[in-house]
């Protein structure tokens, strides 16, 4: 009985909290369940950490930040429902989300219509920010990473014949692959094979065998770590010992863990990927973040966590500068964001509301450790 009273009290308390005017409500929607839940949860971890930091430092505009999180199960229509609820029921002042461009595209028109700023941490499809002047992104768009890795492969690694293995179900992957191929061919290189898989697949040997027969010097795999780890293993099992290249989807401690044949990360030794930051960068913002993240979640942050963290901070910073939780003012300040010192680099929002920031190329070395290779500026 006592338990129930306490439970009831807690409920009414939390309900009471929600009604108080001394909080700033921020909405977040993401895939907390479903096939892409791991990305949504990482993003949420990053956002939670940023929020706690701000609240611990006294909050925003004298108020605490309350983040209301809604799950969209990785479905576009549920994303629309979640955003509709956040915007019209919870009356949030701004929205953070989504990881996947398809869900961001479902949420963006609703935010735009209601004049609520939306910041997506990691939707790379150029269409997303074209939905209106309230929609922002703080990650690279597809062309930048694809071009950077193509240049890196051609110029630094002297690769002349490359193969592509992309996730056809994932717009991020398809986009990167497209721009990689265009740039690489433009430089004079040759794409000898273009194969694809679907997110959730486990066996890639057919594609890898076929690629092997075409004798490329490197394979560009712009996928997520969830599949890339297995791909790397299977490539090595088939005796395909050429460098694999990828994008920021690779960044996760799980990647090298899965890509382990004999020693940790050995299946990915001497492979390269583009990322937002290098873990060995002495920059205190980065080191501080990694330390705190490890302490809080007992694991190394992945790219999604970093982007979630940065997105939240960039948004909170804009609210602080706006001095008011009003949508139009927040939007104006978001648009003015310049050289924001995020973990994922110095971020500037351009006139198309996309992020301009440098990327780094990392090499996976002995024991799965990342080594900094190069910085590419937009």
């Amino acid at each position, binding site marked *: 009985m006592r338990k129930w009273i306490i*439970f009831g009290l*807690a*409920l009414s308390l*939390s*309900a009471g909290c929600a009604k108080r005017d001394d909080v700033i409500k921020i909405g977040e929607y993401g895939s*907390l*369940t479903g096939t892409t839940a791991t990305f949504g949860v990482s993003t949420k971890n990053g956002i939670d950490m940023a929020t706690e930091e701000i609240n611990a430092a006294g909050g925003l505009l004298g108020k605490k930040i309350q983040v209301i999180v*809604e*799950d969209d*199960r*990785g*479905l*576009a*229509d*549920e994303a*629309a*429902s*979640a955003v*509709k*609820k956040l915007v*019209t*029921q919870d009356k949030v002042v701004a929205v953070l989300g989504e990881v996947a*461009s*398809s869900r961001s*595209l*479902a949420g963006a*028109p609703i935010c735009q219509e209601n004049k609520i700023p939306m910041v997506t941490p990691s939707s790379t*499809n150029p*269409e997303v920010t074209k939905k209106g002047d309230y929609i922002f992104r703080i990650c690279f768009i597809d062309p930048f990473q694809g071009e950077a890795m193509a240049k890196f492969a051609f110029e630094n690694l002297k690769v002349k014949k490359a193969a592509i293995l992309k*996730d*056809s*179900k*994932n*717009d991020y*992957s*398809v*986009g990167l692959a497209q721009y990689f191929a265009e740039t690489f061919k433009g430089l004079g290189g040759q794409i000898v094979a273009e194969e694809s898989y679907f997110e959730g697949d486990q066996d890639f040997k057919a594609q890898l065998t076929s690629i092997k027969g075409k004798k490329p010097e490197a394979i560009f795999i712009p996928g997520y770590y969830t599949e890339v780890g297995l791909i790397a293993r299977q490539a090595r099992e088939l005796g395909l010992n050429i460098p694999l290249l990828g994008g920021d989807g690779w960044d996760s401690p799980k990647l090298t863990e899965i890509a382990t044949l004999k020693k940790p990360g050995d299946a990915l030794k001497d492979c390269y990927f583009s990322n937002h930051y290098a873990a060995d960068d002495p920059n205190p913002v980065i080191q501080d973040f990694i330390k705190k993240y490890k302490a809080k979640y007992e694991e190394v942050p992945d790219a999604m966590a970093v982007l979630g963290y940065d997105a939240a901070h960039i948004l909170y910073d804009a609210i602080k500068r706006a001095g008011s939780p009003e949508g139009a003012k927040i939007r104006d300040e978001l648009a003015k964001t310049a050289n924001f010192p995020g973990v994922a680099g110095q971020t500037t929002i351009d006139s198309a509301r996309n992020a301009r920031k440098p990327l780094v190329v990392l090499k996976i070395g002995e024991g799965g450790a990342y080594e900094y290779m190069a910085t590419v500026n937009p």
Partner: protein
Amino acid sequence: MKRLAAFIGFFLLFLLANRFLPEIIDPYYLHLFTLSCINVILAVSLNLINGTTGQFSLGHAGFMAVGGYTSASLTFYLGPKIIATLDFLPAILAKNFVFLFALLGGGLSAAFLGLLVGIPSLRLRGDYLAIVTLGMGEIVRVLILNVEAIGGARGFSDIPAYTNLFWIISLTALTIAAVASLTASSHGRAFLSVREDEIAAEAMGVNTTYYKVIAFVIGAFFAGMAGCLFGHYLQLLHPNSFTFLKSFEIIIMIIVGGLGSIFGAVVAAVILTLLPEALRYLGPVKDWRMVIYSLALIILMITRPQGLFGNWTPDFRRWWPFRKPQPVA
């Protein structure tokens, strides 16, 4: 004549609803209403195939996808041209004319796929048919992933927002009325006879081949229109929305409602659309939303295996105040 008057009456009523409801009702509830209506169309149309005709189809999401993508291509690529040639009409009429055209295009393309899927149903039964329809749905999805002109893996975005309350309400009403009216007719009994006993139905002179295929065609037609409404509402179509899990969702609706009961399909479609949303207000145990949803489904099936309404369809005419008194038998 009376019928025509009723139609015009409803037409005006729906127009009024379209004009004034958004001002009265909270946009979030309106949004849920819209999604519920789309699911009602899907459930009622699948019920014709699955409940009335007894053909176990797991490919409804495929019909929806084909309808959605076809209509979106029409409004996206052809729409501006049609509107340009219709410049003598007020813009709003021209827009809605294009949408009507898209709805029909979406419905007919899905109906054509329904014809293709209906043909295997002549040879296959039960689980084998289910798996073939499921396969067809997956084939559709994979093909969409491969066509760049309709967005491929990125999804088809920038679809004009043509879906409004008028279309939502009138198509939902039309679907329910048409399927209910058909089911209650002699043709409807022919569908039922296929479900009950194909051999006996043939022996009684029912062309089971025709009725099986036609059930798929009609069901797919309405599902295609639902896909059209869906795409022009979200302004986005993505292959991930049309996996076999979507087909499962619709199947769950009609079975929870009571297989064969149109009324049940409608109620269950609404409940199952709202349930996951209502569970958002769980507070501390919000993370358990989908667990609770699945548990609720299992418990409901165990406690009410015949579905919420069994085979029962209320006789709405009885509640109609102007009905002629019927002689007591």
